[in-house]
């Protein structure tokens, strides 16, 4: 019996589309299945400040007609409260049966996956980092180039983080900074030496956001709607790659399908699962399966198909947020500007650890997001923030993923339970980072506001990886250097689940490059199963 397709790609996020390109380019019959959720409200039509000043219906995209923002009041990130992004997170835990126990679990059933609502941070893994992967660094070079060019990234600058991000050869110029960031960056050039000696480096953020038009997407015009939905499609989302994939006749798509299990069948595999709109069980067959459902969903499907009930490790970056006040900027008017990372830093910490983070303008974020963390009466805290926030920038910080001690395990009901906490080293490192950042930013004319440095709960980074790590000689529950699951021959994991390590730097680009690498490998073995 010939299978319905040569390859089924499960998931249409960054990993799924990256793996799919080499496969369809090689002429394989590829089916991509995904949860298929799509946005159902419109982002603001004008730039953020004009929309705020004039749009009487702004509550529809700020709060949501169904009061989405209020329903999500306890969610970890402002992003999870944005009505426009609601579809990107909707139903994930419930339909995939994934639960966090003192661990935040976020995922997506949307077309394009989590890339619909990401921070767009991109970086290449350094040769040292890739040496922890079970294949030569050169294997990824071609893939990095291909994926970076397709996504469109910006931030090319000859600065102190060029060697950290290693993307300048593919990058467009940076998106202009706002006056606060420009001010800090100016001071940085005078203070470089002393800050370097303290392990602090600053540079432009490298982001998957256009500063020049490509492929029908428009460059950022500083509208400030990054958080609320960009009408110009400047921020990369895997849905733009889907548009390109659909031009191939041998590419098919099935939306609204949540895979429950993989079953071995004659000549290959069957995926079984349910439609999100109907309850009927469906089954589709293919020679090979590419798993790109996102780390947590992929892990559950693979562990269930393996009938593997031992716990597997979960890598996740301990993360924190902080607020910087630039006294010199006090009273600055609100200006339109870029809403994602403008400047990034790296910070060397004890024990050869590095922290990485970026700083953002506060203009696109509501005061109420900050007010909840100010230990004052609401009326007073709103007054305080009203005067203070226009001269503040908000920052985040990530530590390497191995500092979180978490695991995922199938329970008796076949739900995937993620539990864990930060390892013992994380707390002192956070403490150290707080002090070091405070000192470093003081030299840049910024005060790290006391009490603002807040360590988030485990899992809040939404960088999950390493559950089904690639190994040279994988054992059960691990994958080969090409992501093939030990025990499920013909099932390839291409998303974060197969990364055996998770540095502090953004990992999405590397997941995509690795998915492309595995896709190319599968395409090269085409003769295997097209006969």
């Amino acid at each position: 019996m010939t299978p319905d397709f040569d390859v089924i790609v499960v998931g249409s996020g960054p990993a799924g589309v990256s793996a799919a390109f080499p496969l369809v380019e090689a002429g394989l019959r590829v089916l991509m299945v995904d949860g298929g959720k799509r946005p159902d409200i419109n982002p603001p039509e004008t730039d953020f400040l004009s929309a705020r000043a004039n749009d009487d219906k702004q509550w529809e995209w700020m709060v949501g007609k169904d009061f989405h923002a209020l329903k999500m009041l306890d969610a970890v990130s402002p992003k999870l409260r944005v009505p426009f992004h609601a579809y990107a997170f909707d139903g994930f835990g419930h339909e995939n049966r994934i639960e966090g126990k003192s661990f935040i679990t976020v995922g997506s059933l949307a077309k394009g996956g989590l890339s619909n609502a990401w921070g767009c941070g991109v970086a290449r893994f350094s040769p040292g980092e890739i040496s922890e992967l079970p294949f030569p660094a050169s294997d990824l070079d071609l893939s990095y180039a291909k994926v970076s060019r397709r996504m469109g990234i910006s931030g090319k600058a000859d600065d102190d983080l060029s060697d950290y991000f290693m993307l300048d050869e593919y990058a467009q110029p940076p998106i202009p900074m706002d006056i606060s960031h420009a001010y800090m960056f100016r001071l940085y050039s005078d203070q470089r030496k002393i800050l370097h000696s303290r392990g602090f480096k600053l540079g432009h953020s490298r982001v998957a956001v256009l500063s020049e038009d490509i492929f029908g997407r428009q460059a950022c015009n500083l509208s400030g709607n990054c958080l609320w939905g960009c009408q110009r499609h400047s921020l990369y989302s895997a849905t733009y790659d889907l548009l390109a994939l659909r031009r191939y006749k041998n590419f098919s798509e099935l939306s609204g399908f949540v895979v429950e299990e993989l079953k071995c069948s004659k000549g290959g595999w069957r995926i079984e699962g349910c439609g999100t709109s109907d309850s009927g069980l469906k089954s589709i067959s293919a020679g090979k399966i590419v798993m790109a459902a996102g780390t947590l969903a992929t892990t559950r499907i693979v562990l269930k198909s393996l009938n593997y009930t031992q716990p597997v490790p979960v890598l996740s970056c301990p993360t924190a947020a902080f607020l910087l006040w630039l006294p010199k900027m006090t009273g600055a008017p609100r200006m339109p500007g870029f809403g994602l990372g403008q400047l990034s830093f790296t910070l060397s910490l004890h024990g050869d650890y590095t922290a990485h983070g970026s700083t953002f303008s506060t203009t696109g974020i509501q005061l109420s997001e900050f007010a909840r963390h100010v230990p004052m009466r609401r009326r007073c805290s709103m007054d305080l923030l009203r005067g203070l926030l226009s001269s503040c920038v908000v920052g985040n910080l990530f530590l390497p993923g191995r500092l979180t001690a978490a695991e995922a395990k199938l329970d008796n009901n076949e739900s995937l339970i993620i539990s864990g906490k930060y390892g013992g080293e994380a707390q002192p490192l956070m403490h150290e980072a707080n002090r070091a950042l405070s000192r470093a930013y003081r030299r840049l004319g910024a005060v790290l506001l006391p009490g603002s440095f807040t360590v988030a709960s485990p899992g809040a980074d939404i960088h999950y990886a390493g559950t089904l790590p690639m190994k040279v000689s994988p054992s059960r529950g691990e994958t080969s250097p090409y992501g093939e699951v030990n025990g499920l021959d013909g099932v390839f994991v291409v998303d974060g689940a197969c990364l055996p390590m998770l540095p502090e730097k953004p990992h999405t680009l590397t997941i995509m490059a690795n998915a492309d690498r595995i896709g190319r490998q599968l395409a090269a073995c085409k003769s295997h199963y097209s006969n």
Partner: protein
Amino acid sequence: MKILVTGATGYIGTRLTFFALKRGHDVVSASRQRPAFFAIPWVFFDLSFDDSIVLPTGIDAVIHLAANTTHTDSLCENSEVSAARKLIKSAQEADARFIFVSSQTARADAPTAYGRTKWRIEQEVLSAGGWVVRPGQVYGGELRGLFGALARTIKELPLLPAFMPAPDIQPIHIDDLTEGLLRIAEPKGARPGVYFLAAPEPVPFSKFLAEIAKSRLRCQRSFVPAPVRLVDMLAPLLGKTSQTRLKLERLHSLFDLPVMDTAPDLKQLGLTLRPLHSGMHPSGSDRRRKLLKEGRALLVYVLKDFPGNAVLRRYVRTIESLRDGQALDLPQTFLSRPILLSLLDHSAWTDQRTWAEFSWRIDTATVLAEATPSGAYRYLQLDRKYGRLNSLLSIGSAMVCELLWRILRPFFLFLTRHALARARGSM
């Protein structure tokens, strides 16, 4: 279930028909006039006519509401009793449950013909194995019946009588009464007998009048003492017609009301009555009104300005769709001076649950107030009130105010405790 309602076009009858239809029952109206509001079957029925009524087929219950409220002679009394007797007989022949709506004044030796007639009919009903319901003072809904008469009188009179000694009444909202009637009529096994339906705790009649003025008519009325003896003496001077017009006779029966022990019957029917102040609101409940007040106070508290009714309605809808839809019942002092909410915000709430709810509502008010052009102008300083000095002033005043409230709080301990207790009670 198919119910025949006599007096279906009256004050209680109309409301009863509405709720019975809403619950999926078939209603047949037995009245002098064809019902105007509902397209339902109608049979002619008049208390003063001698013909007996022929029940339509399939009637499961008869609710007898029709009554002569303007007795002028004893002939009418007798015809009302005989009409009831015939109706009971028809119901028995049709094997239908018979429910008679009597009165709190029903007594063999009642001072009014109204009360005596009710008592006589009650005896007939009970001996035929039927159900008798004695409602207290019915209020709410349309301005009809005695309630309507009282409301109209209050509207006309600048001063109201505070009868001395003060008579007590036991009110019941018309919707609660119809609910009770339907529960008795529905075949779930309420035992035949007399049911007292009214608030278990009597309230002074003058308080009832004041509540009509305040919550229903939205007007202020003062009371003048009116000794009952004096009213008794003056009443005959008014003559029969104006007595009837003012329903003085029925009013008179108030002075002589026995207190009904309603709690056991309410419990048996599983009926919870709405409080008087809530039911007296034109919509039959002041829940939403309280929420509007709370929303307004919270929005003004966080924004220092009222962001408009659209935002206020949004607040109410939020609480209705995401929470229990009930206001936290903060005291009026806080609601009319929102700045005082500073005493409760970040205050020493002992009860975690109430505190969490209060904080949630503050957050909600902030989010809703901010997502408006006026919120943007204020919080993003789009009103050109930026500039170093303005910003520093804003920061400085925030600090000073916070400090001030912290210092002031102990002086308002009593007020704060009172508010916290009420908020806890509302949850």
